[in-house]
């Protein structure tokens, strides 16, 4: 988990009560029917899938609800190459695939970018041009070289004649530099009688090394031919007769079942031919190469270092490979340059009302958004800061405890929670936190002021002109006072019991400003000592003191056309009561072990 302190907010989409179906009896979050009785457990296995930092959340103005990356519906606005930043039309995507077809490649060894360099000069990646390139500006051949690990495509035997259109050139090149025929070329070669004779003379059938695409193309052509001409079956191979599944008659019989017999070909009955299987490379036959002595030899000579890692293999684009699956490249020498995967700009829709809540401008180079409803503009942010209270007189309370320091077990500690209101209305905040944190190690939690109001996010100038009005006591300054006791306290009701602590009073706000309020949370961290041998050891992040907190925000909004959004209210009053409630998790810090 992230470094403490942190605040994560739970999106309501994971809340069983908002899912519109009966609560799952096996749900680890508990199934109390009354929502208010249920305490959210941040350590439940499901919780990590529903907690997000505020920045990752969006907000639907029509539903008045938080939306998270998990529940929004995404739509792709633009595809583009992250290297050349050219937009790729979606029509190209269907024909060319989801990778850049210009000259953008990544290193198969280290994933760094590859640059086209002239092979004749020393392949120095920082040199984009040869020193003598004034004399011969376009001297080939060229190679792709990595500026990070200095890998060169020449190591895989790949050189290019031209410095541009690398993608098309690479498609025709095998590792080692031999050409890889396109399907058309292969078809033409098949017709060539001189080739046919050499192919049949040397070696048995299926010996020719086909790459995946050619083999598939050959197989497809072979079976299509047979389907088109059912009488062409070789007499010698008709042994399967009409019984087998490879027979065109059985195929038409099956088809008639699904088409209701209306399309049944009457001629089919007269067909006697049978489909046969591929027998030659031309027909798509590829014998498995079970001789792995070469691989064993390479391993013996070069060791484990020459083998490709799973990451490297996973980064290899599919279908561009040299061999069939049984000969899959297992050595780094077999890896090929990786054309860049395209990236996308995406718009996001609310899952319930289908309104768009985020939409970037389509152009690749612009960072503007047409619509961008982020949760941070609607719900208060919560900042956490440790508060060290040196004993003695009240005025010595200062907020200068070291952030990230470990919490001592069983010793009370104080944290300042600062809520900042982003909206243009005064909001009323009500907090609810369990007295003890859930989990094996229950720390005690006291929110000293769980109920307060925060001023509206008005313009700083409005506040300055107002000249000292309002109950906050703080002039409209952005700057927070560094050292003070508490004052103000407007908007907080409740008993004013004097706690034993210096200046910490229950029900009193610690500090407030124009559109923010700081309150104090007292925690008594649990001891992480495990009793005896029966207990499981401390799990990862189990030492983090996490407080689940229910936040309820209430405000009165203009009914229609205001900043907070408008929904057709049931009763159209001048002001409309609004409410938003959600769970969040405050990660205060780690407890000393």
């Amino acid at each position, binding site marked *: 988990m992230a470094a403490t302190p942190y605040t994560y907010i739970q999106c309501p989409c994971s809340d069983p009560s908002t899912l519109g179906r009966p609560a799952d009896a096996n749900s680890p979050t508990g199934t109390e029917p009354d929502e208010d009785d249920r305490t959210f457990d941040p350590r439940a296995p499901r919780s990590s899938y529903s907690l997000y930092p*505020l*920045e*990752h*959340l*969006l907000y639907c103005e029509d539903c008045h609800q938080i939306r998270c*990356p998990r529940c929004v519906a995404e739509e792709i606005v633009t595809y*583009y190459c*992250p*290297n*050349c*930043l050219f937009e790729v039309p979606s029509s190209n995507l269907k024909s060319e695939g989801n990778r850049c077809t210009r000259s953008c490649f990544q290193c198969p060894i*280290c*994933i*760094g*970018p590859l*640059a086209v360099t002239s092979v004749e000069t020393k392949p120095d*990646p*920082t*040199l*984009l*041009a*040869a*020193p*003598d*390139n*004034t004399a011969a500006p376009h001297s080939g051949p060229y190679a792709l070289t*990595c*500026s*990070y*690990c200095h890998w060169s495509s020449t190591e895989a035997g790949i050189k290019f004649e031209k410095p541009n259109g690398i993608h098309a050139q690479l498609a025709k090149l095998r590792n080692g530099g031999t050409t890889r025929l396109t399907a058309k070329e292969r078809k033409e070669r098949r017709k060539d009688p001189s080739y046919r004779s050499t192919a049949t003379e040397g070696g048995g059938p299926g010996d020719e090394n086909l790459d995946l695409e050619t083999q598939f193309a050959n197989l497809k052509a072979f079976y299509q031919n047979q389907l088109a001409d059912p009488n062409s079956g070789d007499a010698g191979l008709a042994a399967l007769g009409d019984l087998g599944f490879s027979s065109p008659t059985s195929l038409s019989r099956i088809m008639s079942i699904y088409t209701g017999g209306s399309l049944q070909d009457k001629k089919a009955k007269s067909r006697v031919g049978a489909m046969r299987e591929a027998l030659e490379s031309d027909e798509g036959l590829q014998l498995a190469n079970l001789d792995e002595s070469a691989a064993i030899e390479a391993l013996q000579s070069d060791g484990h270092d020459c083998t490709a890692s799973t990451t490297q293999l996973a980064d290899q684009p599919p279908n561009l490979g040299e061999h069939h699956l049984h000969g899959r490249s297992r050595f780094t020498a077999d890896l090929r340059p990786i054309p860049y995967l395209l*990236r996308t700009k995406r718009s*996001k829709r609310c899952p319930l009302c289908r309104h768009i809540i*985020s939409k970037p401008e389509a152009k*690749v*180079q612009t*960072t503007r*958004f047409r619509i*961008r409803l*982020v*949760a*941070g503009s609607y719900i208060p942010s919560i900042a956490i800061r440790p508060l060290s209270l040196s004993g003695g007189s009240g005025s010595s309370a200062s907020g200068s405890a070291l952030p990230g320091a470990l919490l001592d077990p069983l010793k009370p500690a104080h944290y300042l929670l600062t809520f900042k209101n982003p909206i243009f209305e005064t909001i009323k905040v009500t907090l609810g936190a369990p007295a003890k944190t859930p989990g094996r190690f229950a720390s005690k939690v006291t929110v000293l002021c769980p109920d307060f109001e925060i001023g509206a996010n008005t313009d700083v100038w409005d506040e300055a002109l107002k000249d000292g009005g309002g109950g906050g006591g703080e002039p409209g300054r*952005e*700057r*927070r006072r*560094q050292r003070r006791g508490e004052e103000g306290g407007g908007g907080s009701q409740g008993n004013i019991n004097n706690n034993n602590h210096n200046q910490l009073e229950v029900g009193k706000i610690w500090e407030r400003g124009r559109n923010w309020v700081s309150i104090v949370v007292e925690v008594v961290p649990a001891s992480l000592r495990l009793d005896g041998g029966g207990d499981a050891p401390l799990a990862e992040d189990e030492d983090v003191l996490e407080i689940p907190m229910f936040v309820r925000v209430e405000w009165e909004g203009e009914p229609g056309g205001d900043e907070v959004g408008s929904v057709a209210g049931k009763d159209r009053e001048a002001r409309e009561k609004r409410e938003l409630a959600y769970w969040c998790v405050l990660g205060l810090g780690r407890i000393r072990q």
Partner: protein
Amino acid sequence: MSSRRPPRGEYIETDTGNKVARKATLVGTQNIMLGGKTVIQPDVMIRGDLIRTIQASSQAASGAAPNNTAVSIGRYCFLSRGCCLRPPGRLYKGAFTFMPLRMGDHVFVGPASVVQAASIGSHVHIGAKVAVGEFAIIKDYVRILDGTVVPPNMVIPSFSIVAGQPARLIGEVPEGGHDAFELRDLYKTVGNNPQPAP
């Protein structure tokens, strides 16, 4: 003993609001352009002396005064202690030349990082101990995590979060994360009269 005059500030504050530490090393200051409100912390080095030796052909033809800007920095940039900005260099038409390093607004460069990019957009966060290789192009709203090595010539598109050696895309900046790149508040926290962070 208390001195009557206030002590000489750690920073030189210019008319345009730049705060340049006296202990920063700026070589070739006449070739370094600061947009204003930029903070340059102690032990920062900017190599303004590495100017381009070959002018672009269009400029040479028009006979205009040569543009000698080696490093240009926008507004509200923050160069942390010990970082280095160095224009990238390469062979161009047979001769070696440096090319300018351009940086937009609200660019944070972390401590002990070395930047040799050709261009850095606006709202970019470069962490601590990052190496940005020569002629890298970093677009707007990019976050580069601590310790990353950005290889030379790499292009990092907007809203990328990159990390690793070499850099690899590890995430996207969320829609709500744009404001976090703003450096106005950070600007106020340094200088001769620093204000506490809000």
